[in-house]
């Protein structure tokens, strides 16, 4: 792990979670629908990951989810699954991901979150992992296989470091469950648009409205919606319904089919009004 001297947050300095909330609030004043993108670190290699971050920030992406690859990405569909496997086959390590995070959060002025599976934290030691996260400038994390019932150590470490744990709302979650998840979340909540894994199509229709209303009622945090968002039409649909649109698999698909250079035009297209 990184050996940067551990940062003790002064009480006067806003915590990373507070900074995240403030950034999102300020950006939302300028823009009705924010765009969060998701990339798999080290896929196809760290140089390309850096180029993608650079181009996304330039093209107006508002925040990014950086996935630390894991060998068993249970909640991910074929595109992200293979990106995980190939990043690992190319030798990506947690340590490299931390260094990458340190670099991009120093260089680019948008919030970065980690997305990964619990074993990545557990193998390092949850407390140490979270401390390093804070040191490298990551503001929050999404751990899809860690429900709050199992997340005691994680949640208290995140709290100590002032980081934002982001939980996942789903269409099958009961109103009580949504409130429970919201209580344990900070920064934003991630609403999945449908059942299933990442990377499959979603038919965006007003059927979503009742679910999104339930999400709204459960929290004051900004709502991010992901799973299947991939076009300007999807963005237009989501504008006014949620605060943040999440684009994951589609960017990877664009990169695979048309190269890293094509990502910029794709993002510009999404953000076009």
């Amino acid at each position, binding site marked *: 792990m990184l050996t940067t001297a551990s940062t003790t947050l002064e009480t006067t300095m806003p915590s990373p979670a507070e900074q995240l909330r403030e950034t999102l609030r300020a950006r939302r004043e300028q823009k009705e629908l924010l765009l969060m993108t998701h990339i798999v670190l080290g896929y196809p290699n760290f140089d390309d990951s850096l180029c993608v971050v650079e181009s996304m920030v330039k093209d107006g992406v508002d925040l990014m989810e950086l996935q630390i690859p*894991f*060998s*068993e*990405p*249970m*909640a991910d*569909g074929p595109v992200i*699954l*293979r990106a995980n*496997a190939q990043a*690992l086959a190319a030798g990506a*390590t*947690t340590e490299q991901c931390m260094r990458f995070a340190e670099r991009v959060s120093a260089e680019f002025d948008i919030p970065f979150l980690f997305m990964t*599976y*619990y*074993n*990545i934290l*557990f*193998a*390092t030691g949850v407390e140490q992992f979270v401390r390093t996260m804070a040191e490298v400038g990551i503001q929050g994390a999404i751990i*899809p*296989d*860690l*429900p709050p*019932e*199992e997340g005691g150590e994680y949640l208290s470490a995140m709290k100590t470091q002032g980081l934002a744990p982001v*939980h*996942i*709302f*789903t*269409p*099958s*979650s*009961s109103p009580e*469950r949504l409130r429970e*998840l919201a209580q344990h979340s900070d920064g934003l909540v991630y609403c*999945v648009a449908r*059942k*299933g*894994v990442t990377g*499959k199509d979603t038919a965006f229709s007003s059927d979503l409205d009742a679910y999104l209303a339930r999400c709204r009622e459960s929290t004051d945090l900004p709502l991010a919606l992901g799973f299947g968002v991939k076009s300007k039409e999807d963005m237009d649909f989501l504008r006014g319904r949620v605060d943040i649109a999440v684009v994951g698999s589609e960017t990877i698909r664009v990169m695979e089919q048309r190269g890293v250079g094509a990502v910029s035009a794709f993002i510009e297209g999404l953000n076009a009004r």
Partner: protein
Amino acid sequence: MQHSGYFNQFGGAFIPEILVPTFNQLEAAYLQAKDDPQFWQDYETLMSTYSCRATPITFAQNLTEHFGGAQIYIKREDLNHTGAHKANNVMGQGLITRRMGKRRVIAETGAGQHGVATATMAAKFGFDCTIYMGAVDVARQRPNVFWMEQMGAEVIAVEDGSATLKDAINEAFRDWVTNMDDTHYVLGTACGPYPFPEMVCWLQSIIGKEARQQMLERVGKLPERVYACVGGGSNAMGIFSGFLDDKEVELVGVEAGGRGRGMGHHAARLAYDDAKIGVAQGYKTYFLQNGDGQMQDTHSVSAGLDYVGVSPILADLHERGAARFEAATDDEVVEAMRLTVRKEGLIPALESSHAFVQAFKEAPSMASTDVILINQSGRADKDIFTVADAIDDPKWKQFIINKAEEYRRADNSIDNTGDDHA
């Protein structure tokens, strides 16, 4: 859920949020079935009329004389319909699926035994069925794939990751998070998120219940030691659970030693010291992983034992010293199997033969008044290709060559007729 599903530090339910209601429903159905004496009665009736329960214990007289030590008894799970203990778990989960009102089942399979058992159950209960199987396993267990497809199951070869059991489990979960409303995931071993480990052990405990009673009736005493192979741990927990309260009975789990020690060469999570505690596939246990927590490749001659994790219940027994864990290497396994076939006319699956290896190592130094019990979890019909290769049987090879020639000729003549009509 009402319970957390921990066995000291092992177990739990690390599930994606979308499955929370599904797990609540499953836990409720499981606890209800467990509380309902009628359920167990229906289960025993089903198993005694559709499968071969109670399976007998067999005294292996020739092996006993050969080793000249402890008396060797064998619990015959190979006599279950579909040839392995997997049927116990599957039929029980079939009854639970029906109670939940679901119409489709999915399952992962390694050796294919659990897949065949699930396909059988689906055919009998009238469920739709999809089986996920690592592409490597599809290639080495074609006979089981053949039967699954005959029974109407769709078999999906999983190419991702190491293309073995763990990858099939991931893929089954991906199906489940999409189709949970009408689909039950019939997990095949005592692993995965709570309530699976506990529920599977409960259904498999029928082995141990019978075995304990049979030992008392037939032999007049409990065995000194009980041996079972350990993949995920369901047959081991099944037989062990009959003797957990009998402190004088030593429980011995035998894992896949493969080519011997060293990461990548085996699948011994407890017997060797390459595994570390981690969380994957929804639960906490010992996993064969690297320092970053990435799962590593495993190896075993038997497709059913090469899993990266192990039942949290066994991990706990291991930690508490309530069971002992050993490993048997590929070569030892084939040798023990050949000896058992030759001496007793029994055909233990390569998985089961791991248990025989350890029993054979220990029997000679035990007293002739001592009794040991081996769980023969399955029979080796499915392993005929692997075993024939290991034994390097020239007549088998010639048979396959001839068969291939026959198919090729038939193919050519079809092609030719095709051309004629073109």
